């Protein structure tokens, strides 16, 4: 979300009410800044479920498969070692490393996937230019309306936000007058 309007509230309840009002008015590209993650806010914004579990699953599957392949190839094919006539392909002995590698790949994929999904790291963002936005991580609750939203119209949206009794309404991002 590069530009749009923001409305600031003093409680999570007020933010949730405002978010529902805007959803009902047909706005879809909404977001919120809150001091701590909140399922209530996410539900009010009707955010889609995160698809990160698929990333974790894919990472773990690839990691496990690669590990087993490597173990099998090095121990069974390339350099078989006969220790006291034990089986040529001792799959139980391959379980621990297959599991550890699956966890490693799954974990790293989740971590990287999280940053990709969020578009982070991004040290500068238009929102950081808004005066007093720091309080959104302390005790302010901010509703964001994307200027790309089909229903977005600067004056009308602002009027609609004003009706939800915010502390203030401000614009952010380039090309928008305050």
């Amino acid at each position, binding site marked *: 979300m590069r530009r749009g309007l923001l409305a600031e509230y003093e409680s*999570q309840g007020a933010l949730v009410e405002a978010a529902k009002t805007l959803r009902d008015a047909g706005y879809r590209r909404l977001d919120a800044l809150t001091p701590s993650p909140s399922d209530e806010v996410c539900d009010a914004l009707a955010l889609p479920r995160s698809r990160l579990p698929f990333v974790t699953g894919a990472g773990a599957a690839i990691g496990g498969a690669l590990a087993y392949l490597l173990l099998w190839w090095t121990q069974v094919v390339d350099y078989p070692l006969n220790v006291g006539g034990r089986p040529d392909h001792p799959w139980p*002995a391959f379980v621990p490393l297959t599991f550890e590698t699956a966890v490693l790949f*799954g974990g790293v994929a989740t971590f990287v996937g999280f940053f990709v999904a969020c578009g982070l790291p991004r040290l500068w963002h238009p929102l950081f230019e808004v005066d007093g*936005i720091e309080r959104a991580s302390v005790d302010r609750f901010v509703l964001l309306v994307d200027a790309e939203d089909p229903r977005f119209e600067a004056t009308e949206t602002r009027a609609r936000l004003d009706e939800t009794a915010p502390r203030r309404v401000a614009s952010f991002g380039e090309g928008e007058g305050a």
Partner: protein
Amino acid sequence: MENAEALLLGRPSDRELTERFVTPGARAGGWLRVGLWTCAGLTGLLVLSIAYTVLTGIGTWGDRIPIGWGFAIANFVWWIGIGHAGTFISAILLLLEQPWRSSINRIAESMTLFAVVQAGLFPLLHLGRAWFFYWLVPYPSTMEVWPQFTSPLTWDVGAITTYATISLLFWYLGLIPDLAKARDTKTGRARKVFAVFAMGWRGSARHARHLKIAQLMLAGLATPLVISVHTIVSFDFAVGVTPGWHSTVFPPYFVAGAIFSGFAMTLTLVVPLRRWLGLEAVITRRHLDLLAKLTLATSLIVAYAYVVEPFLAWLSGAHFERHMYLEVRPFGPYAFLFWLTVACNVAVPQALWLRRVRHSPWVLFALSILINVGMWVERVMLVVTSQHRDFLPSSWDVYLPSWVDTSLFLGTLGFFGLLMLLTVRHLPIIPVTEIVEMKREELPDGPAEEGA
């Protein structure tokens, strides 16, 4: 008098919570400087003893055949075990939706991370030629051989690497929103440093949704991982045929001991930090009480293992097994280690049945020190006793650590303390974001917290 049942004392507003607790170390007094310098001194000792070991060889240690594994392996097992309680608190209690874990979460996770660092040092040095550590990694080389992957020692490499990596990622993921809070409440250079490490987190609900799921996924991975790590560590012993090691009870026994010693270390850290940083409002007596109960529960599992082991040895009828469990350990040259283990790990924790003990922080602290000692002694006892009586009585010998062994161990204690205290001093050691979330879920928007 404070309410013994509360997870959060008073009704602090979000602003008070954030400003007081986002970097509580900034208010720390002179004790922190004393602690830092002491730990830095011991870290210096660690560096010297590592340098001496690497330049001279591990002949500087007390290890002599038949005792090829001494302090170093015991230290490794002990340190890696300490970490397990941190993962238990951060991952398993997250999946079980226990809100009380929030306040001590970061301390426990940091403990895990830094304990794994200490643990990793010992196998590395034990290689003798530590600079060839990469031979443990399967890479195509002109030597045309591969690591022997059916040996538990190579599984260990994978387990520890994965455990260290996942612990670091999990720790950092949880830290991001708190780093952003630190950025937004600081000024000057601190603000810039926190801004870089917060990676531009802005508290967006869309991002938060991903964060919660990512944390849940990592917790789901870390839960079986933590069980697997000490299981594999126990395989280092149990897969061999040495009497006293070759036992199927080892994996659960090691995992229980690991979590037990980790809870003790959590108490050792939390009790003084809570007092010195003034964290009583967020780490309440309820937290200490719950930690004490978990310590007691895991102590009972460990006690059960102490009984089952000799019973199985007796039941097996194997001469060497019976000799090890029923004669050598309780009455041999290391009998004092055995009885100290039983005293510290079985007898001492029974005091935790008393509510009055669970509610006296400094008594808990003293008990936790005894348990730490007990668990360390247990590891030494397990590692050493099984080797000093070989199958041939002519090979019997007694192990004594050298000054290098002792310095390495003290050095890792110092290095662990140094890393912990630096984290406490500079980073958000209290996960304020999670506490604010917990508070909102437990006490929804009330008039007391609205407005500013």
